[in-house]
């Protein structure tokens, strides 16, 4: 698994030093807090991805497998622009704009012709887009991955509680994602455009008949989704390597999230994303030890990686079996 390996590497680079082993209970508590925050951070990142996916699905009824490609493009744009400008923030803003633009172009040229078609057509067409994007990236940036170095001010550990340090960059991800989630909530629930988006989700024909430019609205929503995916990609980029196919693993996670949360529901996506992020991260961190107490150590070390990778799929399967519509189905349908 690419993610877990690079996560591990990243953790050793980014994370603060592990405290001394003499306070055993305290060490364990710190580890739990740190892993919990890592899970929260990962979950919020997943939310950014899932929010765009669920918006596009809920409003345009489009299954977009290429959403992960937009995430990847966000990361590649960020690595390129940061290297060009030499400024992390400026590069990030440029990358965000580029992904937004790419999303709008993509919607305008191809995806808008897929609305109203069978879901299977969406799967096939966007599968083709994934092939295209992966290959285009290989052509432009080469097969080797890129690194996105962090500026010095983001690499220092920050004291979140007295005695508990957490990497500033991961903290920044949490803050940015929470702010974006809040803005998204306010935007969808409190503004006129948001009202139109919600109206579009509940009855497409009616809002078109009322004289709303539905095509423009769709393009806007898709661009927004693309920008959110790009934001997730560029924020994840310094933690993982920027590489081809990085969007595919995480796309599946995002799908798992919107299925658990209920397709079309942003609130559901938010809660499910945090849930999945924490379960996945904590599972990877603590399941091996837990298993070792129950099984022989050889059996545990074989079973643990597979089991912790399976964990969220297991959760999803259980959720779907118990509540086939997801945990928080969009009540506007």
């Amino acid at each position, binding site marked *: 698994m690419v993610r877990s390996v690079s996560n591990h590497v990243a953790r050793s680079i980014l994370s603060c030093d592990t405290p001394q082993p003499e306070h055993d209970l305290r060490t364990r508590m710190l580890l739990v807090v740190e892993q919990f925050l890592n899970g929260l951070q990962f979950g919020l990142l997943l939310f950014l991805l899932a929010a765009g996916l669920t918006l596009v*699905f809920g409003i345009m009824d489009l299954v977009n497998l290429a959403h992960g490609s937009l995430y990847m493009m966000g990361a590649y744009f960020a690595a390129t622009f940061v290297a060009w400008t030499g400024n992390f923030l400026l590069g990030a803003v440029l990358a965000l704009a580029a992904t937004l633009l790419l999303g709008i172009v993509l919607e305008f040229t191809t995806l808008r012709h897929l609305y109203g078609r069978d879901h*299977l057509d969406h799967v096939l*067409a966007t599968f*083709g*887009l994934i092939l*295209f994007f992966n290959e285009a990236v290989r*052509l432009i940036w080469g097969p080797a991955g890129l690194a996105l170095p962090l500026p010095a001010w983001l690499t220092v550990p920050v004291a979140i509680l007295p005695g508990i340090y957490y990497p500033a960059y991961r903290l920044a991800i949490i803050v940015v994602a929470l702010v974006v989630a809040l803005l998204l909530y306010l935007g969808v629930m409190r503004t006129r455009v948001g009202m139109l988006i919600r109206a579009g989700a509940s009855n497409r024909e009616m809002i078109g008949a009322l004289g709303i430019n539905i095509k423009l609205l769709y393009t806007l929503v898709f661009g927004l989704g693309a920008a959110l995916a790009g934001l997730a990609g560029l924020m994840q980029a310094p933690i993982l390597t920027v590489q081809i196919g990085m969007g595919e693993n995480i796309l599946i996670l995002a799908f798992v999230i919107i*299925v658990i949360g209920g397709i079309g529901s942003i609130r559901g996506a938010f809660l499910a994303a945090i849930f999945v992020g924490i379960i996945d991260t904590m599972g990877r961190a603590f399941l091996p030890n837990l298993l070792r107490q129950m099984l022989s150590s050889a059996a545990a070390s074989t079973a643990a990686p597979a089991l912790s990778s399976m964990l969220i*799929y297991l959760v*999803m399967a259980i959720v779907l079996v118990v509540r086939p519509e997801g945990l928080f189905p969009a009540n506007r349908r």
Partner: protein
Amino acid sequence: MKDKLNARNLVSALLVAGLLLLPLYSQASGNVFVLTLFTRIVILALAAVSLNLIMGYGGMMSFGHAAYLGIGGYAVGILAQEGFGSGFLQFPVALAASAIYALVIGALSLRTRGVYFIMITLAFAQMAYYVASGLARYGGDDGLTVYKRSDFGGLINLSSRTQFYYLCLACLLGVVFLIWRIVNSRFGMVVQGLRSNEARMQAIGFPATRYRLVCFVISGTMCGLAGAMLANNTDFVSPAVMYWTRSGDLMVMVILGGMGVLFGPVVGAVAYLLLEELLSQVTEYWALIMGPLLLLVVLFARGGIMGLLGRLNRG
């Protein structure tokens, strides 16, 4: 479906004839590669045909069909590793394992519909993928080499290229025949009826889920056969055969060829894999052409290649 001479049937017949005669061409021209390539194509066509049974006729959009390829393959690989080389043991185990897996995930997945079904089958396939990655004893992530192909006594020698090719082709044609019989049976009619209008079928009194589940298990078992073949063909099985992009490939083959048409997936598999092969000979960046091509098929050629041929006939 009436049997008559139209463009679809003509193409299907020509394709079958071509596949049957291929080893002769390979022998005459000394081109061994083409036989190897087509063995792979025939095996994946078998997988695509099995997917077509649930997707095209049953309306169940499984995005996790590659899991059976892995299960069938690992059944052969693991038994071979443990010293059970007989194909008379390996193949039944591969089929049974696939059937049991299909029964379990089918019973759970068929509670959902539409996109949820696509996603839950995908999730189960990913789980199978991670289980295989965790099999440290059998190679884990790196996969498992099958040092000896399945042994069928004196009956057939799988190490002979031509014999193996004909075995694969016989399996493919056998499965296509079986699907033809299934689809035109009472059972097949019920399953297709459920695709068209579930509420009405239930009102008549057919237990929807039970019929779907049986269909799902049949399809999975057929694909498990393809998996066992594939492991023999590559002498290797790894978690990568279960990765979700492979399930996507199978879906592409079915849709490209023509969903719900008997020979559609065969045509689709041949077209897709040949195109992949040809493009990769022209340019290293073959997917740059393949991707947009798929998009064009979706946008302008509904019903895939068989759909185009059908229109040719009518127009």
